[in-house]
């Protein structure tokens, strides 16, 4: 039996492991009946193509597709306009205090 390779769980994550009935045509991972989406993709690939979720999400996704995804896009919102280059420089990766104490490092996936 090929086990389903989709990651599941809320706080403790693990592989689904149910019997796979298909493979995701995009990323190739094995999928059980519960995890194969309508279009045949795995949930992550489907979400990336916006084939799951609310219809409005799909519309927003299409609108975004016409725009150039870059840092400038984020400034559309204006919340962060008060921060200038001087403010931002203090948050460059090499400006962190002791790297040993960085709070956003690469902690391992909490797998069961």
């Amino acid at each position, binding site marked *: 039996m090929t086990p389903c390779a989709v990651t599941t769980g809320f706080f403790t994550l693990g592989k689904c492991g149910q019997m796979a009935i298909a493979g995701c045509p995009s990323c190739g991972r094995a999928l059980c009946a519960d995890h194969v989406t309508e279009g045949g993709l795995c949930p992550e690939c489907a979400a990336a193509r916006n084939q799951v979720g609310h219809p409005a999400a799909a519309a927003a996704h299409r609108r975004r597709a016409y725009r150039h995804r870059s840092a400038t896009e984020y400034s559309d*919102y204006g919340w962060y306009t008060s921060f200038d280059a001087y403010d931002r420089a203090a948050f460059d990766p090499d400006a962190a205090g002791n790297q040993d104490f960085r709070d*956003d490092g690469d902690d391992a996936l909490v797998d069961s």
Partner: protein
Amino acid sequence: MADGHRAAYVAFDRFPSTKGSAVHIRHMAAELFDRYGGGLLCVLGGGGLPSYQREGDVEIVRFDAVVPNWLDRAEAFSAWVADRLAAHRDTLEVCHVRDPWGALPALSLGRRLVYEANGLPSIELPYTWPLAAPSTLAKIADLERECLLKADAVVVPSQVIARTVTARGVAAERVHLVPNGADPVPADVPRPPDAPGRYLIYVGALQPWQGIDVLLRAFARLADLSDLSLVICSSVAPSRSRALRRLAERLGLTGRVHWQHTLPHAEVAAWLAHAELSVAPLTASPRNLDQGCSPIKVWESMAAGTAVVASDLPVIREVLGEHGRLVPPDRPAELARAVRVLLEYPDLCADLGRQAREHVENGYTWTHARTRLAAVYHGLDLR
């Protein structure tokens, strides 16, 4: 196609992770999603976490764009959250956030906002980003204040931070105390197979304000207790314990200090339960004094029935009360003495542990915390 969600929980934190914040998010988000028939969880990804999950009525989306500059990353996260929330514009009623980066997009959507202030970036950030100028921190404090003032409810884990938040202008009737909690550890939880004979334990992250250097210096003063080890259960990766390992080496503690990194939460309980004492050596830094926190490690030690020795800070008094031993912060000699005395009186130790456990069982389990949070949501629904 899924229907729109009525609730969203937004956190600029990786979830899940082995940190205390993840335990907190787990329970608070569960309450929100139970109340509103599911919901959308927007968190940080990376580290191999899936960018998208659907678990029953809950959808989990993770921000995993690589943006090197931290402030740029916070900004990109806000914009990403705005897009995620916009998709649920027709149905969304409540947004529960933990920081300004999640609050800003929630506010522009104009839904009811619950702001959970566990810490304030304007206080916390200088510890990680020492080059941040006072003028920059003042701008961050402005953003923070704007979000707090506009929130329908501000949830805080301690009286200390409640005072800080009200001092910034938030009306006291909108501030709700929801202390952290812990779930009692079964009395018969098996001893971890690789646990040393008798050991003290520290559980948590390794930032300077945690005071682990003080603990190491105190432990060096207990060298005559040759059968005693110190276990450090770090919630962060080994790469971030380098400076402390070097200190342990310099203090001649190699071999007596056992390092455990990023243990799954469920395993930490067993380590806590079988320790002689649990130590929370928090420093008297502005971070701990003004901002406060509700240290999950202390709650979890209490729930494991293990006596706690902790720094005498207002926030610790709030949690531990009389059910543990308080010592002056930043004083290795005093900490060592307190540990020594408690080890000499195992009955006293056992009593403290038992009282602490009862205190948690009687009012501070996660079930209690969730009930308090449910009352906050209930109040919002009535408005």
